């Protein structure tokens, strides 16, 4: 199967359905919680209500993402043979969803149940239209968590080890991790780390607190490091 789609040659198809479905699910969850998370004040006009702008935002997210989801080129996945052949399964499935939607509407009222019914419909449709390219794309999205993890580890360790030592450690380590093993790149990364600290902390005095590690340094050196590095 090709990654490109014919109707939208300017945009890759892989992951589009998955993204639209995930975004729509999040928007529907937000919509479901709007009554709980915002207030409606009795003596205020519509435009002064605290709920008015969140409703515009979340409502717009739901409406436009649903339309985007609907207009995406879709092709049903190939279901397992027993599912395709068994009429009873398709009947049973349709009845199950209809029953769930009906009971939700009776339980919560049609207006409050709408986000949940939309949520169920989105999950069902996403499952029907997702292909192996979407799964492959999802794995790529997950792989980025590694770099986010590196970033957060750096953030956690700076207040402990100090901005200068941590940056001098972080830059060459990450450079090594992404595959640059030469001595040149090692020194380039060290030089870059040093420049960043000198420019931002020592010269521009950007607000980065002194580290716990600096407390163990002797007298004058301690305050010098806390102020400049």
């Amino acid at each position, binding site marked *: 199967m090709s990654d490109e789609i014919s109707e939208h040659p300017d945009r890759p198809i892989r992951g589009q359905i998955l993204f639209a479905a995930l975004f729509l699910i999040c928007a529907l969850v937000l919509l479901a919680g709007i009554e709980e998370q915002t207030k409606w004040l009795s003596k205020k006009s519509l435009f002064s209500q605290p709920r008015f702008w969140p409703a515009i935002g979340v409502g717009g997210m739901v409406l436009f993402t649903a339309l985007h989801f609907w207009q995406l080129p879709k092709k049903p996945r190939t279901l397992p043979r027993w599912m395709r052949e068994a009429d009873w399964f398709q009947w049973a499935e349709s009845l199950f969803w209809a029953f769930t939607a009906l009971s939700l509407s009776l339980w919560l009222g049609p207006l409050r149940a709408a986000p949940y019914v939309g949520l169920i419909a989105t999950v069902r449709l996403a499952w029907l239209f997702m292909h192996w390219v979407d799964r492959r794309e999802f794995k790529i999205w997950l792989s980025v968590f590694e770099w986010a993890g590196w970033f957060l580890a750096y953030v956690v360790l700076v207040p402990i080890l100090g901005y200068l030592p941590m940056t001098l450690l972080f830059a060459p380590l990450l450079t090594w991790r992404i595959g640059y093993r030469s001595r040149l790149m090692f020194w380039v*990364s060290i030089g870059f780390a040093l420049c960043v600290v000198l420019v931002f902390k020592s010269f521009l005095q950007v607000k980065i607190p002194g580290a716990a590690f600096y407390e163990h340094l002797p007298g004058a050196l301690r305050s010098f490091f806390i102020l400049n590095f």
Partner: protein
Amino acid sequence: MDLIYAFLEQIGASSSYLARWDVALALFVGSVGGVLIGAIPGVGPAVAIAILLPATFSMDPIVGLTVLLGIYGSSMYGGSIPAILINTPGTAVNALTTYDGYPMTTRGEARRALSLAYSSSFFGGIFSVICLIFFAPILAKIAPMFGSREIFLAALLGLILVVTAHHKHTLIAAAMACFGIWLNTIGLHTASFSKRYTYDQSWLSGGVNLIVVVLGLFALSQAFTLLQGDDEKVRLTKLKGSFFQGFRELARHPRIAGVSASLGVLMGMIPGVGEFTAQFMSYTYAQKSSKRPEDFGHGSSEGLIAAETANNAVPGAAMIPLLALGIPGEALTAMMLSVFYVHNVIPGPQLFQNDMDFVVALYLALLILNVLVVIFLLIATNQLIKVVKIPNRFLGVCILILSFVGVYSLRNSFTDCILAAAFGIFGFVMKRLQLPVVPIVLGMVLGGIMEVKLRSAMARVKTPLDFIDRPIAAILFVMIILVLILHFRRVWLDHTKRKANEWSTSHASTSFPAILSRRRNFILTERGKKVRGKRKTFSRRSTDKS
């Protein structure tokens, strides 16, 4: 004469803002830094401005804004270098430069192309700043006519234009703009002192910081994209010839340069439109009015002039809605708006009335920046082109380290860093799917403005028609309606065109019963006739009498 004296007096008063060593240093750092950032594919002004924003908070407003303006204005000069030499635009707005710049390089005219790009950019930049300096008194008169409802309508128009500008991605762009509006509502609602979408979490009570979102969406997502990707092999060509030839060549095309710069200024002034529309309009104009339209896309000097002049005329003009109304037209000016707010300088009609010297000083800074950038480029291009050789993934490491400075120095908050990382991942996914992120930022900024202005405007409105009973409000309302009608007309035309294409190229069904049916028909009709004819021939007795 009085007007000229007043103008010179204004310039004199404003130049006192700039006659300081820290402003001079900011001008130098902004211009050189902007060119460098633009010349490195994969960084771009948005990433640089996002990282530098918190650092500028501790500076004077004029110093901080000069650095950011410098990066904004000069990055497009630098962006033309990789666009011309290696067919990769340094910034997104230099994409059109590759159409004619790179073919010139392949013909061995790299220096001519670079020289033309610099001179056109310089003309565009200077033209827009001169226009603005002359427009400033008029703006000062018009700006006070904007009350709450006019600013609300202008912000709404900006948001609609941003969404409709994303042709073929309009729906998801609208969803992202709404996402931005919702993000802005998180936290304490100051008018009613009630919490909105905080889920009883204390870290959400203060709301989501715009800079954290911007850093995540632009800087961290770019770092993740670069770290995830591969390095590109770059082969540079040697530059031969003079850099001054471009100025002489530009002087031979005054019409194209003039029209392109005017289009750049016009498009820059309208919120949400920006460089892309300006350069595509001027490129189309240049192609249609050229004596050799067939050369466009194959190394036409006119095409290069049109694209570069138009995109460099935009940054100056984009400052008009920002300064006069406090409405940013794009992500970069939205970031700059936060610098104004941090220093308690509120852009809008009051700024033009009370602090005109500051506004003109900003324009003068832009003027000086353009001169500095051209001098720097004429001297240092041979050395500068080496920056395109920096490996992509190492750039990712650099941006990650610099992003830390941007996010952590804001409030020293680990939560901000987690949020920025989350938005970084979100931005990475959006980049992979080629979906727009700019509407999120503008939704956040314009959503906030719209909420405040609508609330105060509605206090004096009794019937819906009262809302547009003032002339500017009525004009803005008509413009909104016009933009929407034009957009839906384009959508409808695209739809009919796509359907016509589908019908003209639709192939027969490939399902198995259809294949069987077609085969049976063929056998029974065409092939059947042929076979029967053949058999008839063989079975027919010869009538020859030989």
